[in-house]
């Protein structure tokens, strides 16, 4: 998809040293109090004078040609100031760009934000209105007449792949197939990736397990619905306040979609009420800008929860086949996976990422991965925390569990015998650098959790996960203020709420001051160079690389000030423990200068102290984790209760350990939700029927057990403090771990997620049909 890593990218080798701030507890989390008291400003809290309210008219059909759109009656409604449809947006050529962890194609992006020829899912936007009140905007939507020619639709990924399935895009000829297919289909891409010879590998196996798994589409479930406020000035500048994980990327997309110069778009990311990859894509932003341009008024748009479900996110539902073989002594000889991933209405699922993660916990000689990226009449898939990985891990970790069982080897021991380590050749290209997978398995073996005896109908499951850490473009600026405090301006959106603390701590470590003297400030697009999105667990890892570089830049400036004051050369000054000091006794007997002292002298010795960095971070170290879960299954109702849960993960170096654990708790909770109840449900018309939190069941607090987390630290060799990305790995194992635990509890294997009570009860009853009611 993209180019190979740049040879001009930035790496800073790990610098082992005693740490004073990193790994401790900051005095506070700077964003926390305002969030708790309700004063933090999210996009929906932004209000501008004269603001209008924008609403979107959405398709009720899963698949239909748009024959005509008549907005005349809506435009005449008093209070309506602008209406936009496909005619207000330029068509786009095929052009790919990175948007978070997934690639986008502008031809599709413009069609997703506003349908052109066709509507492709229930909830697909067909028009938008700006009016003086929300009530008038809603009334206006009802006055828009859209004439549809309803077409047959397809929701299920396997059905969408069949010859004769309704075809969504007449110009979609499967890429990756030679010769080019004669007919269009819903298979956008067929990909293969291999290492060694799987056939030969399977011949060496004493046991072969082959299974098929199905998973449902699940939504990121962020609490904050998408919201945007746009102000298009008479000077032709668009200002946007929005809920985003990447304001610079959004700026570029808004500019492209509206044919504007990037310099004329300013995006301010607001506090984010959760993203998890789901806020990597523009939905409302270009519509709000265009409505503002037409109405010459600021326009605010906020999705309802129903709209969030029907038209944003979700992750790919999948159909996956996994086949693995092992010798009697527990060595995996070959591994095969076929991965069929829903992309939603437009090409571009998480397939490519899932293909990277599929077997990358194991040191394998023979691997074949085949994947299909499949469109169907659902909302376009967005990234969701380790996109694509939990679903394929369900399959692979399930088959691994069955292999271990067949060979009578403990599941952790089986994984240790096959564990990936430094130097392991991946099937997709690179060899792994120093990683901590084995360390997580070894630590898991020591968990007290494993010593707790299980009762009747209780079972224990183990599963593991791998996720890479993205580098990419990152910029930061630091200003040493007149009083010696530091302000760090960063451009990786603080999606976790922990990044501000982490950056403050890292700068404090660099400067030898306390973290409360450093304030990390999120930027808008006008104050920094480009930053890629916060995606791929890069926020703290890549973000801190830029912050470290910028701080060292400022330190050089401080050394310059000391040198000028002392009348020595700059290389005769060193910065240690928060002070500029003479590099040696031969330099002279000068009193060390603290950061506040240097700040005071800055003006006279040439001007304020600042530092900045604009880098492309490369070669970040991946993360690995091992999860153990205990469940109890109610055999009469099929209800699965998660009793206890342990997470062991390699953080490289936990900058703010409490918050690292918080990330793991959150990810495991999401994974438990996927495992137990979460799924998109459709009626026979292809309309989503559970577009709300009542019937799309994310777990509530009482559904979750205490989530025990243990941090393993195997430093990332390519980060000055050894930091690895931590946010995504822990959502990967839960589905598989819970499935394995259900088997341990009941003797019944489940191959379809979610493990909802009716499904579990049916599976149990199929095995024991005569079981009495109680």
């Amino acid at each position, binding site marked *: 998809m993209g180019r190979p890593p740049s040879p001009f990218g930035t790496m800073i080798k790990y610098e082992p040293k005693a740490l004073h701030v990193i790994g401790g507890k900051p005095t506070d989390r700077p964003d926390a109090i305002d969030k708790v008291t309700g004063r933090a400003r999210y996009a929906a809290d932004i209000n501008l004078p004269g603001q209008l309210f924008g609403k979107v008219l959405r398709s009720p059909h899963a698949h239909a040609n748009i024959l005509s759109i008549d907005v005349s009656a809506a435009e005449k409604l008093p209070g309506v100031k602008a209406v936009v449809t496909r005619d207000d947006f330029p068509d786009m050529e095929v052009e790919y760009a990175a948007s978070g962890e997934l690639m986008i194609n502008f031809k599709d992006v413009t069609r997703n934000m506003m349908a052109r020829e066709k509507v492709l899912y229930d909830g697909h936007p067909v028009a938008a209105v700006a009016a003086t009140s929300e*009530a*008038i905007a*809603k*009334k206006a939507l009802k006055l828009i007449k859209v004439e549809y020619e309803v077409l047959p639709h397809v929701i299920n990924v396997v059905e969408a792949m069949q010859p004769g399935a309704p075809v969504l895009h007449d110009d979609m000829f499967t890429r990756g197939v030679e010769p080019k297919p004669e007919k269009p289909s819903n298979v956008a891409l067929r990909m293969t990736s291999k290492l060694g010879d799987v056939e030969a590998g399977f011949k060496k196996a004493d046991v072969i397990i082959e299974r098929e798994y199905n998973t449902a589409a699940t939504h990121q479930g962020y609490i904050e619905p998408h919201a945007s406020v746009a102000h298009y000035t008479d000077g032709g500048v668009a200002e946007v306040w929005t809920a985003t994980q990447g304001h610079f990327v959004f700026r570029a997309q808004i500019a492209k979609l509206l044919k504007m110069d990037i310099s004329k778009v300013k995006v301010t990311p607001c506090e984010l009420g959760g993203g998890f990859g789901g806020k990597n894509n523009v939905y409302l932003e270009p519509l709000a800008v265009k409505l503002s341009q037409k109405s010459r008024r600021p326009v605010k748009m906020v999705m*309802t929860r*129903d709209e969030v479900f029907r038209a944003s996110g979700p992750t790919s539902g999948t159909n996956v086949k996994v086949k693995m073989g092992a010798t009697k002594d527990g060595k995996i000889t070959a591994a095969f996976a076929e991965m069929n991933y829903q992309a939603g209405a437009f090409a571009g699922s998480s397939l490519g990422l899932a293909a990277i993660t599929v077997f990358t916990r194991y040191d394998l000689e023979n691997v074949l991965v085949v994947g299909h990226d499949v469109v169907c009449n659902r909302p376009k898939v967005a990234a969701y925390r380790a996109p694509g990985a939990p679903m394929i891990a369900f399959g692979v970790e399930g088959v691994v569990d069955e292999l271990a069982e067949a060979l009578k080897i403990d599941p952790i021991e089986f994984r240790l015998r096959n564990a990936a380590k430094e130097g392991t050749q991946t099937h997709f290209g690179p060899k792994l650098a120093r990683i901590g997978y084995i360390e997580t398995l070894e630590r898991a073996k020591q968990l007290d959790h494993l010593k707790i005896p299980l009762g009747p109908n209780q079972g224990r499951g183990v599963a593991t996960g791998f996720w890479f850490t993205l580098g990419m473009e990152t910029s930061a600026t630091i200003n040493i203020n007149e009083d010696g405090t530091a302000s760090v301006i960063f451009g990786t959106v603080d999606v976790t709420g922990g990044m501000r603390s982490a950056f403050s701590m890292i700068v404090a470590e660099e400067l030898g001051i306390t973290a409360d003297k450093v304030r990390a400030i999120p930027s808008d697009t006008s104050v920094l160079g480009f930053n890629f999105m916060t995606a791929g667990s890069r926020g703290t890892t890549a973000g801190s690389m830029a912050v470290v570089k910028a701080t060292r830049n400022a330190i050089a400036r401080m050394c310059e000030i000391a040198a000028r004051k002392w009348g020595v050369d700059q290389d005769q000054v060193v910065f240690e423990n928060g002070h500029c000091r003479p590099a040696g006794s031969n330099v002279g007997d000068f009193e060390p200068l603290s950061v506040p002292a240097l700040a005071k002298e800055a003006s006279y010795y040439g001007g304020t102290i600042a530092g900045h960095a604009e880098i492309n971070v490369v070669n970040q170290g991946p993360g690995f984790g091992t999860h153990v879960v205990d469940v109890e299954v109610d055999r*009469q*109702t*099929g*209800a699965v209760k998660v009793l206890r849960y342990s997470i062991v993960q390699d953080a490289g170096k936990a900058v703010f350990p409490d918050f690292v654990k918080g990330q793991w708790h959150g990810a495991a909770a999401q994974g438990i939700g996927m495992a*137990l*109840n979460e799924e998109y*449900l459709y009626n026979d018309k292809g309309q989503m*029927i*559970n577009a*709300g939190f*009542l*019937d799309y*069941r994310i*777990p*509530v607090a*009482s*559904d979750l057990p205490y989530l025990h987390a243990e941090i393993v630290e195997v430093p990332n060799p390519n980060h000055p403090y050894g930091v690895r990305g931590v946010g995504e790995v822990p959502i990967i194992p839960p589905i598989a771990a819970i499935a394995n635990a259900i088997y341990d509890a009941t003797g019944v294997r489940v191959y379809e997620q979610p493990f*909802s*009570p*009716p499904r579990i*009860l*049916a599976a149990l*009853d199929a095995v024991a049909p005569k079981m*009495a*009611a*109680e």
Partner: protein
Amino acid sequence: MTDLRYEAPATADAAIALLAKATGTTRILAGGTDVLVQLHADMIEPELVVDIKRIPGLNGISREAGGWRFGATATGIELMDHEGFSKAWPGIIDGVKLIGSMQVKGRATVAGNLCNASPAADSVPPLMSSGVIATVVGPNGKRDIPVSDVCTGPGKTSLAKGEIVTSFFVPDAPPHSGSAYLRFTPRTEMDIAVVGVSVNITLDASGTCTAATMALGAVAEKPILVPDAAKALVGTKVDEAALDKLAAVASAACRPIDDKRGTKIFRIKVAGVLAKRTAAIALQRAKGGAK
């Protein structure tokens, strides 16, 4: 939406007059935990919303000859916190406790839960199996009807235009009586019953069952009473064999649909499972054991 009229009359008569006169859709607002949600979700577009919270006499919980009476605007929390009532009617309290979050229960009323007419309303099966009477007032005067006669189908009640439920009368149970309500939901809370079962049991001094009632929620177009429950339990010590019979009776009474919340097969089976579990709790309570 812009034409919505809100009224908060001071008397029941005024409320009835407003509702009787209205030409379009009307809604009665007590706790608002259903009405406001439905309004915001554009599920309803009423012409008139009549807030009954300001009507004196519709609130409170009190003793009356032969039973308890609580008003239409008494909230779930008021019932839960009322020592005498909650002790006497643990089955009703089981149901009330399951309605929404703590915040929702602080606003929501049993009358609203009943008149919203969801087949899955958690407080309704226990009201039915406990023989609770609803007092209904309307343009043609006052009438007392069993709660089981109120809901007629999803979103539908037997109340005539202009009629409102003003209070409930809960007749005292004989000594050695116990009640319980259990529901099944995929989530532990903040969910809608996939199956709900309420059981009331009365024992004689020897521990033999002399009366038993059962009501089921979410397994038919409305909450239903299961008269055959008495046949399964009366005359028994509510032993394993009797409970198995009760389970079979519960399953047989179900006429559910497949929907997003559960399948027919699942509901029928789980109704039986819950019938046994609920009856076991009711039995304990009848014996004066731990709740």
